[in-house]
């Protein structure tokens, strides 16, 4: 553990405790971006309530010159702006850390701690004296702590000033007042405390070629680049910002500058049942269509998802997972929709899932989701989560391949229909389990009935056992084709030959990578297989076979991914050991490190 004197240059966690609705988001984002522009890897996690104003909210910024951007579990610098949570925030500071508080009001002396440094700033008093307007006074307290932190953490003031100017653009009055507030905080700590702290930022050159972006924005951008034209949705946290971003990008890039005509159509549906229906209606007509949602929305979409699976309609869904069950905790993260998404709907139904592990992959997998949905004629669910979807992650620049052409799959056009004798919707002409489809309005020969009821390979209604079974068995063949087409897992071999393997996916990735790197010096080596899709495919089978013991890391109580691995691959459950974290906060590496240390100790003892 760190002591008071230990230098934590470019390796610390800054946490700001605040009240939501006080405008702290822009101050926190300013701090994070300043570190980023100083060339030091950084990430920001927002822990916010399901509320508009008045409840506690925290923002955690991890600064890591070594590039560890998951949560570490430590709090090295705490800015305690919320009296409601002061006791808890004080207790959360790691020994050797620093607590900054608003000294306008007296602090409860009974809550003292000797193992941390405490810095009092009269933020409210300074802002009340300096600014007239009541709302401004509240907002500017945040900018004043930014100024204080700039002095304490040695942040580059020029970058801060530049960011303020960019944020407020032409609103010069706002730029001036924000800079004044920053100056108040800066001058106060400079005059009263030794600056900078041993915990501070030193410029590096490690963020070039990177961006700070959240997964919902990146996924929305992916939808634009994939050529999606119809978006249907019902607002639900934490997926809402995906459609907001799509709308923003479309207004900018898909609106005719002269006529104002839009090359997209967004429908805010009455509920998620309608949202998925709209997607299917549009996909049936050959538009690329998608819906962003979260667990409760996915539950509502179940009937239509089974319908789409059986009638073989493409659809792209983004499940930005939040904490369940039921309404759960809407503003907390989890990976707990794995099973309900994989098998959404009644009857023998299964769906292709994609697991992005950061915002950049949200972009890439959004594109692949549309290609796969069209190619496989089936719903594809991109399993994001609140941590990826709503927090800013540092990712490599997104690069676009100008040669990209969408894979629209097997769609017969008018000319092809003209030439053939007759069209049958569900015949497996190519032996890959994927039939040909037609779009309404194309040609009289292309007409067929989309029906969820029993149908035979010709698309006609049936109640005949053999005819029905032929169709559902062919769907299994299609599933095997899907296993070959979906993105392969990313396998990272340990520095030394490893008997143990670790499987994880999605937002667990930074914590897993950090844990493995922290364990290596103690001689604990594991190979790591990051899943990117379900069905899992051959590489995953081999990875499991190659290792004596497999640890499965996931963010849910019931080990859903482990269940899916055993169901799909038939591997012995006893070989799969779970590491589970499901409290709703982004995964930190400690639980992985501790579990593997214990397992290693037991392994040696045995």
């Amino acid at each position, binding site marked *: 553990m760190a002591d008071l004197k230990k230098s934590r240059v470019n390796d610390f966690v800054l946490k700001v405790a605040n009240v939501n609705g006080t405008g702290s988001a822009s101050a926190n984002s300013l701090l994070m*971006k300043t570190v*980023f522009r100083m060339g030091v890897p950084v990430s920001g996690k927002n822990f916010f309530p399901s509320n508009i104003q008045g409840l506690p909210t925290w923002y955690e910024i991890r600064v890591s010159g070594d590039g560890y951007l998951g949560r570490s579990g430590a709090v090295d610098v705490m800015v305690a702006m919320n009296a409601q949570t002061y006791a808890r925030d004080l207790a959360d500071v790691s020994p050797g850390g620093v607590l900054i508080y608003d000294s306008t009001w007296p602090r409860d002396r009974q809550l003292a701690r000797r193992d941390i440094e405490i810095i009092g700033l009269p933020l409210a008093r300074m802002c009340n004296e300096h600014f007239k307007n009541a709302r401004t006074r509240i907002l500017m307290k945040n900018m004043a702590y930014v100024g204080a932190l700039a002095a304490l953490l040695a942040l580059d003031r020029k970058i801060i000033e530049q960011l303020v100017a960019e944020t407020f653009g032409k609103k010069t009055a706002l730029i001036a007042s924000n800079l004044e507030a920053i100056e108040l905080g800066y001058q106060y700590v400079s005059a009263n405390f030794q600056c900078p702290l041993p915990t501070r930022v030193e410029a590096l050159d490690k963020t070039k070629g990177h*961006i700070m*972006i959240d997964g919902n*924005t990146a996924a929305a951008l992916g939808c*634009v680049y*994939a*050529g*999606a*034209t*119809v978006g*249907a949705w019902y607002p639900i946290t934490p997926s809402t910002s995906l459609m907001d971003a799509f709308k923003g*990008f479309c207004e900018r890039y*898909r609106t005719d500058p002269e006529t104002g*005509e*839009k*090359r*997209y*159509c967004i*429908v805010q*549906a*009455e509920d998620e*049942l*309608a949202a*998925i*229906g*709209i*997607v*299917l*209606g*549009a996909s*049936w*007509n*050959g*538009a690329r*269509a998608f819906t962003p949602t979260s667990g409760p929305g996915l539950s509502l979409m179940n009937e*239509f998802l089974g*319908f789409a699976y059986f009638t073989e309609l493409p659809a792209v869904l983004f499940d930005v997972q939040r904490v369940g069950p039921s309404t759960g905790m809407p503003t907390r993260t989890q990976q707990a929709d794995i099973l309900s998404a994989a098998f959404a709907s009644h009857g023998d139904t299964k769906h292709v899932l994609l697991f992005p592990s950061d915002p950049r992959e949200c972009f890439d997998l959004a594109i692949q989701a549309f290609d796969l949905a069209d190619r496989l004629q089936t719903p594809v669910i991109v399993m994001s989560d609140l941590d990826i979807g709503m927090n800013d992650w540092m990712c490599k*620049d997104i*690069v*676009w*391949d*100008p040669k*990209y052409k*969408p894979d629209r799959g097997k769609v017969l056009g008018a000319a092809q229909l003209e030439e053939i004798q007759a069209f049958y919707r569900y015949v497996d002409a190519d032996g890959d389990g994927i039939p040909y489809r*037609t*779009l*309404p*309005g194309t040609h*009289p*020969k292309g*007409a*067929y*009935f*989309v*029906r*969820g*009821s029993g149908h035979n390979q010709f698309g006609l*209604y049936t*109640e005949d056992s053999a005819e029905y079974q032929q169709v559902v068995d062919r769907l299994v063949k299609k599933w095997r084709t899907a296993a070959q087409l979906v993105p392969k897992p990313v396998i990272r071999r340990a520095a030394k030959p490893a008997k143990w393997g670790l499987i994880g996916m999605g937002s667990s990735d930074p914590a897993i990578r950090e844990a493995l790197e922290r364990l290596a010096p103690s001689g604990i080596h594991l190979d790591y297989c990051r899943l990117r899709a379900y069905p899992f495919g051959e590489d995953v089978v081999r990875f499991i076979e190659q290792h004596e013991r497999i640890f499965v890391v996931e963010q849910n109580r019931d080990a859903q991914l482990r269940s899916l691995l055993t169901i799909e691959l038939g591997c012995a459950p006893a070989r799969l050991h779970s590491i589970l974290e499901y409290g709703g906060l982004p995964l930190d590496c400690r639980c992985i490190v501790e579990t593997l240390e214990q397992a290693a100790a037991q392994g040696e003892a045995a």
Partner: protein
Amino acid sequence: MTSISKPKIVHPGLKRNALGLTIRDYEGGMSTLCAGCGHDSITAAIVQAFFELDIAPHSVAKMSGIGCSSKTPAYFLSTAHGFNAVHGRMPSIATGANAANRSLHLLGVSGDGDSLSIGLGQFMHALRRNLDMVYIIENNGVYGLTKGQFSASADVGTKAKRGEVNKQPPIDPVQVALALGGTFVARSFSGDKDQLVPLIKAGVRHRGFALIDVLSPCVTFNDHEDSTKSYAHAREFSHRVVNADFVPPATEIKAVYDAGDALPIVLHDGSKVLLRKIAEGYNVGNRGDALEYIRAHQRDGEIVTGLLYVDEGEPDLHEVNGTTETPLNAVAFEALCPGAEVLAALQNRFR
């Protein structure tokens, strides 16, 4: 819903429309509904309307949900695409279809169970969006496929076949549509083809959501005495207030109507509906009056029929959205993808 194909024999003397098609080209498979079902008459009216409108069958999408009524798209326009959605959810599929392909003619056929119970929300929201489609409710007051339970449109006091009396007030789709701002609201009776065919034609040419509620008796479960949805009851209590005659574009309106009686409404493609007022005191151009008139007659047990309200001026989904005229499913990928340079420049926002 076993499909039975109908042998297609075309008599050489059969009348052909502007596309050179005969009425047989607008038919579908054999109906598997009960003999005498009101729905089959509506099917026949649809066949006639589309034939007379010279619409290519494959440019139509037949939309339905679940129930007896929802089976009927199999019985007309065999070369049109069909979509049998899940129960009560056809309006959302239609919304997506229209969003992606605004050039497609959407014809929805639903029932009182499909639209007024499980699908009431979707029905109302399609109405609210003024989705460009014809939406026919084949309304018989009962669930036929599950053998005779009351539906939400059953009138108070109406008796089920097994003797049970309905005590809950009905949901009347016409009143719902008027209250929610419906732009084309009509009611008819399956036994009145002369009234129904022009209504369907006008509905197709109307831009926006054209609701046609058609009283369509269920011969098996709801055609007995003490039923208010029987043939006998409908014949006795139907009260025509407005006749709508459909006039295709470029057809001169001959002076067969007295000028004072006929109100021409120009539809967006230039065709017209001539509204002829039959009942005194019915004000077709006023939503509130229409609603009041219908309610008053409902209290007297009368079923008001005709084109009860029409407003051609309201924007549909695409006008509200400002969508390009080219159907979105036909816009080239190059016009959708902003390209590499834009992406590179855009990312400076995220640094």
